């Protein structure tokens, strides 16, 4: 698509409602720091941000403020950020997930986190799932792949990213080009737990690369994680 065509889509992109192929093309332009796209999308995002002031104001419950503070307290039983995955101690995914479940997040009823754990467990519980460990100087961890349910990546010691970069997972088929399995960022302690649902039939390997922040249609850097299945 030309820039003239993309100009029609910046607003929809900022609202998160652009259709393909415009969404992917704009993301690619952002990833390679296209000045025109970056400027236009930032302006559109600013407009969307101000739109939040047109939303009817509602008062949150008082307990929510306390929950926010509890969330970041250094008490390990409440520390979501650093206690997300006690990777070093866990060793295997099941132990890690159970440990996370015991860190207080269940008590805090975080449905989103529980949904992610549930998705991870669905992959883990698939008898057909493959469990592959990886480790190199840049990252270590484990990939679980269920052909019918999806992929779970648990990684530690991930490389530090520049502010305009993001991690991207790829499914490498036995034939043909890598298929994007989505983008993710690491936590502050350089760990990540990333779940990608869907079928992964015919995958020969799972790889992770560092890509421009918009993600890429195909890998643009050498994968630093490659797990052969």
């Amino acid at each position, binding site marked *: 698509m030309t820039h003239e065509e993309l100009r*029609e*889509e910046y607003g*929809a992109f*900022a*609202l*998160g*409602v*652009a*259709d393909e192929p415009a*969404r992917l093309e704009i*993301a690619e332009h*952002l990833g390679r720091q296209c000045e025109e796209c970056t400027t236009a*999308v*930032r*302006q559109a*995002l*600013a*407009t*969307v*941000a*101000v*739109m*939040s*002031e*047109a*939303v*009817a104001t*509602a*008062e*949150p*419950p008082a307990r*929510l*403020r306390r*929950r*926010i*503070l509890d*969330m*970041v*307290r250094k008490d390990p039983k409440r520390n*979501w*950020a650093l206690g*997300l995955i006690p990777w070093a101690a866990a060793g295997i995914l099941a132990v890690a997930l159970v440990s996370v479940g015991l860190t207080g997040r269940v008590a805090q009823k*975080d*449905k*989103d*986190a529980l*949904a992610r754990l549930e998705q991870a467990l669905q992959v883990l519980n698939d008898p057909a799932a493959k469990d592959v460990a990886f480790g190199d100087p840049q990252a270590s961890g484990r990939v679980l792949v269920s052909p019918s349910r999806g992929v779970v990546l648990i990684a530690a010691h991930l490389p530090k*990213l520049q*502010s305009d970069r*993001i991690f991207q997972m790829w499914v490498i088929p036995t034939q043909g080009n890598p298929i*994007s399995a*989505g983008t*993710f*960022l690491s*936590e*502050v302690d350089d760990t990540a737990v990333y779940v990608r649902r*869907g079928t992964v039939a015919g995958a020969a390997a799972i790889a992770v690369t560092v890509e421009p*922040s*918009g*993600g890429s249609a195909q890998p643009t850097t050498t994968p630093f994680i490659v797990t052969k299945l």
Partner: protein
Amino acid sequence: MTIPGLLLALELSGHYDEELARRLQQRDERAMVDLYDRYGRLAWSVIVAIVRDASLAEDLVQETFLRVWTRIQFFEAGRGALGPWLLAIARNRAIDHIRSVRSRMDRGSVELDVASHPSLFVDMERDIFNTDHARLIGAAMKKLNANQQRVIELAYYEGLSQTEMAERMGQPLGTVKTWVRTALSTLRDHLGEAVR
């Protein structure tokens, strides 16, 4: 919220959010409370308007602040607009949820992650959430015709793609795209320098 003298000075100088982001990057727990006091009500309002479920909204607000806490190292404190970034995460969390209910989570999660990357919130107006802008956006919304208002509502509150909007409204895709584009253009024109 009571702001001590130094913070009040920072607030008046327009650097409060910059200092707040630096404190978050230094893992200052108190900064999270200050962040919540500053943006929690707005995040709550946006999320609860989208998901229409107070219990769920609490979880999504918490998830929003957790994301800021865990991703703040990617944020450029000196150039970034903290509030717009947080609000983008808040709305995306809510839209992700309702899309997952519609079983479209895979598509939505990737798309929205890109649109809330911290690098997209640099060099943006820092004082974007002020009473003038609230007044301006309210007036600007009233300038939209009924179709433009409808597509903005379907996009902002329901996260429908333009194709889905066209199906919902029984209109050609090109027509819906024109409405979305002209609606945002109208809003941007009314907001003026705040969004340039």
